[in-house]
């Protein structure tokens, strides 16, 4: 699906949360581990619902998790 104009800090936030694994995050937001991996790698943009669920897990604002870049990387 290519690299998207949305970047994220999920990997860093996971490590900051007692080194949460991708599987643990996936279980908490209701997706597969492979989907979490695709999101972290910028290969998949999650729906708004999943994006908000991720932010809720880390207890941070959505903008701390996802950043939009005008210039696609």
């Amino acid at each position, binding site marked *: 699906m290519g690299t998207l104009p949305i970047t994220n800090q999920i990997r860093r936030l996971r490590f900051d949360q007692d080194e949460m694994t991708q599987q643990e995050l996936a279980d908490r937001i209701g*997706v*597969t581990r*492979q*989907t979490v991996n*695709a999101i972290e790698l910028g290969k998949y943009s999650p*729906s708004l619902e999943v994006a908000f669920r991720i932010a809720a897990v880390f207890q941070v604002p959505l903008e701390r998790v996802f950043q939009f870049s005008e210039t696609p990387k």
Partner: protein
Amino acid sequence: MSFTEKSAWISFVLILIFFGTYFARVAGVIFAGASGRGLTSLFFVLVGGFVVLEAVLHAVLAIRSPREAQAGRDERERLIAMRATRVAFPVLLVGAFASVGTLHLSVDRWEMAHATLLAIVVAELVRFGAQIVYFRRDA
């Protein structure tokens, strides 16, 4: 590899093996100008074997990953499935029209029926193949 991707691989490989075997025999019959009636039992054996092996392999997969099997597809997997269907549907349409087009050729009912079946099989291979490609690209 997720449960859904493994499932796609199982279906892709089994369709390729079972129906590839069958259509290789069909091609042999057609090019030899022979009667296709002798392939009837082979057809039912292969379809039966395909159905049984699909069920068994998916059951094994589900037993090994019960949580994933019960969870169903997530949003990305549903999107991949829709995109794969969007790719495969035109293939099915072209195949269907081509098999109808055989009406204008000197083919018999047996050959026309197999042209239709081939269209379905190829479309399914494209559908599962596209799913696998999309899964691999995201990995």
